């Protein structure tokens, strides 16, 4: 396999697997009664078959690889994604203000700000958003479990 067209080959192979898995899952679908001649599995099977054909085409005629990000960018992106996961779980217990301030400070740092500016910017943004959403628009955001109720 020549170098330089790996991305599409990998994507094609993965998509072929997806179409097989999706197709098998669709094949197993059974309806107790049939309201129409096609039933619940015909359309998904059509989709699985189309995806299989398209991904085979991708395997046979792949495009040249895109420029994937260099390691330092990749580290930043992974740091960002990790913080998204943490934020998802931390939002309810920590509350919107604290969680968002910390998350924003972390993201600002990834984009080149210092901890101090990031924290100040994050606090300002979190407070402003909280004011707009909770007091302005009446959309509730969590206060956090540590907050005296």
């Amino acid at each position: 396999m020549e170098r330089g067209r790996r991305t599409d080959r990998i994507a094609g192979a993965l998509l072929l697997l997806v179409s097989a898995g999706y197709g098998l899952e669709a094949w197993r679908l059974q309806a107790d009664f049939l309201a129409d001649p096609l039933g619940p599995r015909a359309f998904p099977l059509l989709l699985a078959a189309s995806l299989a054909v398209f991904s085979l085409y991708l395997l046979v005629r792949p495009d040249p690889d895109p420029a994937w990000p260099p390691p330092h960018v990749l580290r930043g992106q992974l740091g960002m994604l990790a913080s998204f996961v943490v934020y998802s779980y931390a939002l309810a217990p920590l509350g919107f203000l604290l969680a968002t301030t910390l998350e924003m400070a972390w993201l600002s740092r990834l984009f080149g700000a210092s901890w101090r500016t990031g924290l100040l910017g994050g606090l300002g943004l979190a407070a402003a958003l909280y004011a707009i959403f909770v007091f302005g628009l009446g959309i509730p955001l969590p206060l956090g479990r540590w907050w005296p109720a």
Partner: protein
Amino acid sequence: MDVLAQLAHGFEVALAPLNLFLAFAGAFLGTLIGALPGIGPVNGVAILIPIAYALKLPPESALILLAGVYYGAEYGGRISSILLNVPGDAGAVITTLDGYPMAQKGKAGEALALSALSSFIGGTLAVIGLTLFAPYLAEWAIRFGPAEYFALMVFAFTTLASLAGKNPVKALIASVFGLMLATVGIDPGSGVPRFTFGELKLYDGVDFLVVAIGLFAISEVLTLMEHSFLGTATRVKVETALVSLKTFMGSLWTILRSSLIGFFIGVLPGAGASIASAVAYTTEKRLVDREGSFGSGDPRGVAAPEAANNAASGGAMVPMLTLGVPGSGTTAVLLGALMMFNVTPGPLIFEQRPEIVWGLIASMYIGNVMLLVLNLPLVGWFARILTVPRWFLVPAIAALSFIGVYAVNNSAFDLLFMTGIGVVGYLMRKAGFPLAPVILGLVLGRLMEINLRRALAISGGDYTILYASPLSKALWALAILSLFFPWIAGRLGRRR
């Protein structure tokens, strides 16, 4: 004069204080979102949907706000194109070609004023086109049966595939991915849960908003990490935006022609603002550029793409409202928003919910006037927004995405799902898969399947019903033709 009476009724809706305010808010936010490189209209609309939903706005008001963001963004996109040579959104890429050279010659104010006027004329002509064209198309489309609808949706996917990216097969894969996401949940025809893996949360299907925000906003934030091009302007100086009558008159025919081109390209399913502005620019270059000044700061080179991209966003409303088949990523998101409000666009909406359609159309007349005012005297204020540092802007986009998704269900699962979809969206962008077809597939999937099954229920399982009527035959022919269009065009181009 039925149209005028309907339009008058629409103005009653649009002039209600709440709707007037929302049209202004949409125009303002749209200009802002368009002006900031990194957030385009799709992101803006997707992030605002949950807010509109949580505020329990009536559907016509929500649509007035969201559509305002959509066409307002086409105004705002030009600001950073002209001042920084960085397009504010995809429709404003072409505007950099002559806009930035004009700014370098010290004519930034002139370029901004002329492009604002072009945007206004293009946008307003498109709304007039929408007013005249849409009711007839809707009346005609009432005759569509399920087989015709199925063929029409296939046509929408194939035009999108041939126009949306470099590789049509990748766009088709993206469409199928979106359609597959749409099949998750309880099958409406038989009550069988499909692809839910026993997860109760998935019984209602994949949440459209979570996918839209993850796919566009989160993947955008990941992409922004990569590019340092989002050069924050250290100082942006805009003198008063004024254009001489002579320059304006010199561009008038360009503006009118480009508006027409933009409108019709916008009406085509699958083709949106970015294609319209490119086609208008190349057409004008061929027609009027005798001195070869296009590309080095010709005012007409600024007027053409701006008139076209605004006209295209108005034109794209035509198939979305009349057929219920959106033609672009953003109109697909708008359609999804309407479905969240339990409104199904299509030919019947003109009879059943006239306040939604005509209220929206009337508000677009008003919104374009507001946008002209916002974008002429206040352009300096929007230009100053470009000095917001990147370390603040990107986290703010992320925060708004998280609030938006969280506001719908208050669920951490949704936030994680959004992040996951964001990673998928990022990988797709990198590998050259367009994202708009995914949203189109997700929004149209159920309707497409229902129409297919209805058609075959009518015929008792006879597949020939799918191409029995002359109309469906024509739609299938168009679908096949559009799929091979890039290939045929390439062949013809080489022969020349």
